[in-house]
């Protein structure tokens, strides 16, 4: 019964955040499309836009999915349901991770496929890709952990600034 409630809470978070996810995926997809144009400007814009999409998703998601629920006083409504604080935390961690990893994974796979399908792959591009795609992931993990532990918007913003200043 409790696992069913946790699943319902995770699906609830998906429903609440799906617009943000769709916009991030659409923005990342558009950026990848720009990379296909035979133009240096389009390549630069597309590259920057792609990483901005990933970083924005990783920064905004913990705030909108975790912090806002406390700020907008939705927490008493959820805690009146048959769950414990631990189960709520588990559902929140699972939904936040899933909401980021799926679009991040999709965009990273799409970008990697595009790079690998080029005829002339520069040496060292693969480790560089891992580093560049991994940075938004690490940043997201740090911001999400800060948001889950502190439940404070101030601390989440501080973590966001710290991650983006790397």
């Amino acid at each position: 019964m409790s696992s069913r409630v946790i699943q319902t809470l995770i699906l609830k978070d998906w429903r609440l955040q799906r617009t943000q996810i769709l916009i991030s995926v659409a923005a990342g997809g558009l950026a990848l499309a720009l990379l296909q144009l035979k133009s240096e400007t389009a390549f630069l814009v597309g590259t920057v836009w792609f990483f901005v999409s990933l970083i924005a998703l990783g920064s905004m998601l913990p705030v909108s999915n975790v912090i806002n629920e406390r700020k907008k006083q939705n927490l008493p409504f959820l805690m009146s349901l048959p769950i414990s604080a631990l189960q709520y935390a588990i559902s929140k961690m699972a939904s936040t991770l899933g909401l980021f990893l799926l679009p991040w994974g999709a965009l990273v796979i799409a970008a990697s496929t595009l790079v690998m399908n080029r005829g002339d792959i520069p040496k060292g591009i693969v480790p560089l890709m891992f580093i560049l795609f991994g940075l938004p992931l690490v940043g997201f993990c740090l911001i999400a952990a800060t948001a889950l532990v502190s439940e404070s918007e101030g601390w989440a913003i501080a973590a966001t600034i710290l991650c983006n200043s790397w």
Partner: protein
Amino acid sequence: MSDLAIELHGVGKHYPFFRLDRIDLQVPHGQIMGLIGPNGAGKSTTIRILMGLVQQDCGEVRVLGRRMPAEQIAAKWDIGFASEDMRLYEGMTLAWHMNFIRSIYPNWDAPYAQLLLKRFGLRAVQTIKGLSHGQRVKATLLLVLARRPRLLVLDEPTTGLDPVARHEILKELTAVMTDEGRSVLFSSHNTRTWNRSPTGSRLSTAAASSTPWTRKPTWTGGVACVWKCRPEWRCRLCPASSESARTDGWPSSPPTPSRPRWPTPMRAPARG
């Protein structure tokens, strides 16, 4: 199984500038208990402790026979809780919230939910953001009542409502209260509102004080006053009173000999 819906034994909670000290409270099944007191008296803290939202520092809490907060999950299946600081998701519709609750609670009564929609004048397709404060309170109560809980816990359910909205909500809660199979615990600082509730002998109230409790109050489903009143003053809540007194409000501090604050003082019967 215990005959009591709610049991608190020696419950205490300490905050830097406030403490609940050794609370005993018993609410039998089918009883209606009101916690009445001024702001800061400890009503919401007590309710949060028995809901398992806040862990007590000492004492034992049982709700519907379940220990709290250890067995809060099992208890919450049969509890409907609504508080004044509870908010629904603004961007979602009332229908979404109803479906959300229905997916969790197997006891969800869909026809009753539709009836409440009609009685409260709500539209399921409307987003919560577009509702007024009174409509949001009604929406929250709809979500609570339609799941048919055995125990209803309401923390200041009518605060901030206009008289018409308050009347509509009280009318619906009265229908719930007349169901002797259900227990109700509510908190309020408005005694007049709840005195009108036609629940007969099942309604009992307990007074809470905003001062740190210096003696052990006993709330045993009856009435108790935790203020050290003078013997010649009797309030409506005192079991020794022989007449009912009308209270127009709740004083912010205990009455003092030089400046009595009870609106209608009563004399104790002469001895001898």
